């Protein structure tokens, strides 16, 4: 997994609540058996004017000029600003894969759906919850200021705006440690093999039918 510590990135505002994972990556792209290559189809139905299918040359497809990601001022954005309940719906990890492949490293919203939030950390993406008023202030600032960037510091758990305002954010200590160091969860868990085996033996004795 990619490490994450510091980012000074361009911000794009996606001003919608309840952005679901079907919108982030539509179902037809879930037929892939790979982990990579989903970026060109992130937000496919909003981003393009035609209907997308796997295998199309996305560079030749007509872009929807009204969709915020297509506006030239937001080209190269690495920070996605969104409204409440971002990432709701399906558990598809293809959603964070698509966002990461597009180039995002940070998503800021007042709230996230649980499974999506969890999936982000497995893929080097940092989802940050800020208060709704703070998110609202950021939306106003981004829309008013071309080239608006934010400095995200995971170690300090802070976001600095160009005018010097600093927002602190919460992140669980364990997730932070893994993200800062790019640690693979499986490797970490396998350090506890003996404890898992001991638990399993006890569990089997208590509920043998679970092991039939």
């Amino acid at each position, binding site marked *: 997994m990619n490490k994450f510590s510091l980012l000074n990135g361009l911000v794009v505002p996606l001003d919608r609540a309840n952005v679901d994972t079907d919108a982030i990556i539509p179902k037809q792209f879930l037929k892939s058996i790979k982990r990579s290559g989903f970026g060109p189809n992130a937000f496919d139905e909003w981003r393009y004017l035609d209907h997308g299918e796997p295998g199309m040359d996305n560079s030749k497809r007509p872009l929807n000029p009204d969709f915020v990601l297509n506006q030239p001022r937001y080209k190269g954005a690495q920070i996605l600003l969104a409204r409440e309940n971002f990432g709701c719906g399906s558990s598809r990890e293809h959603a964070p894969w698509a966002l990461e492949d597009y180039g995002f490293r940070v998503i800021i919203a007042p709230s996230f759906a*649980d499974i999506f939030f969890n999936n982000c950390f497995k893929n080097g993406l940092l989802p940050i919850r800020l208060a709704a008023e703070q998110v609202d202030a950021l939306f106003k600032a981004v829309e008013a200021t071309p080239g608006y960037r934010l400095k995200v510091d995971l170690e300090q758990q802070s976001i600095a705006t160009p005018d010097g305002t600093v927002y602190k954010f919460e992140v669980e200590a364990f997730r932070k440690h893994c993200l800062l160091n790019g640690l693979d969860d499986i490797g970490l868990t396998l350090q506890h093999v003996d404890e898992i085996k001991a638990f399993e033996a006890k569990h089997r004795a208590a*509920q043998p039918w679970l092991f039939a």
Partner: protein
Amino acid sequence: MGAQTLYDKLWNSHVVRQEADGTALIYIDRHLVHEVTSPQAFEGLKLAGRRPWRVASMLAVPDHNVPTTNRAAGIADPIARLQVETLDSNCAEFGVNELKMNDVRQGIVHVVGPEQGATLPGMTVVCGDSHTSTHGAFAALAFGIGTSEVEHVMATQCLLMKKSKAMQVLVEGALGKGVTAKDVALAVIGKIGTAGGTGYAIEFAGSAIRGLSMEGRMTLCNMAIEAGARAGMIAADDTTIDYLKSRPFAPQAEVWDKAVAYWRTLHSDEGARFDSVVKLDAAQIKPQVTWGTSPEMVAAVDGRVPDPATMSDAVKREGAERALHYMGLKANMPITEIKIDKVFIGSCTNARIEDMRAAAAIAKGKRVAANVKLAMVVPGSGLVKQQAEQEGLDKIFIAAGFEWRDPGCSMCLAMNDDRLEPGERCASTSNRNFEGRQGQGGRTHLVSPEMAAAAAIAGHFVDVSKV
């Protein structure tokens, strides 16, 4: 230890170890697998030279990509076919028990697991699918996970997670005529919102819940995720135990008796504390119809499409305006005046035998309305299909003008050929009405099987409590 919630009991009995910040390693008893969210996990396992920790905990079934017609011809779409073949070859390579596409037991993973008795009370159940919450109906801790976690469970039989808060949704009283578990689910979501359960595990309780069949309980827990909660659950009782007896994966003989004795402890203790309690009066719940692009955008069938202009919250107002535009609806129009183009009866929410019976009872002796281009019934598994055919339900549907299909996820998410065309409006017994969910530009109204069948016959929504 003091009074515990059902969630406390399930959680505490699976903690392997805990970090200082509360992150715990939780042991997983049952791992259900389907073709869409597993290939990258199997690949990761192979690249790291690992084997599944306990392959007997796994049960795999292809469901999202399978065709619902002419199955003998195989899957026409080469990309979808490769995904199903990849599941077959991964399961063969690692020795995973798989119910293949042409097995009569094949079906939607959340229908198949309980039907086989692979979901038992007291278990932790995971699957790379958000509707895994369904299995919580059996007093199990069941939740959806991403593909990285699928690989993690394969490799370690565990998951890293923090305990959620506990919410109790209490539904007391008797449900009215024509009001189903689906309507309870939609009414709960309408009340607390699609993010209302975020960060919580929900326990559904109260006399109305105890009165539901196992299938109704599964419908309700299935949609816990639509309220934002990863897990929904219901205490074990005689209904749970009677359902499980003699299922292929359920314990037998004296082990059964021992298991039942344990299962009877799987309820919240008197006086257990919840972080949040939500109460609904069952008698007040009417048949529900969603009007927007989020399951919380829901109204009673005798109500009207809301007027965004009356909404004070700006984000909600803009969301409602966008939804009405997408859905092609006008503010204040009566729900019963919404005409439909297609009907879908199926999905992990509503494709079990009782759903089939309920829809057939409405359709019997009637005809699908002329304005309805397609009305399809997709049973949740091959065994549901077989049972329905033994009862003659297929003949009722076909005589009424419905199509009777083979089992799979089908038009709930339209990964196979079953989908809406742009602008088409569908009465659907599935669980999500997101933009494009059933096909790009498609318009979904979530309803119960009874309501979907009645809409198919009338050509528009009708109040089944008055039929």
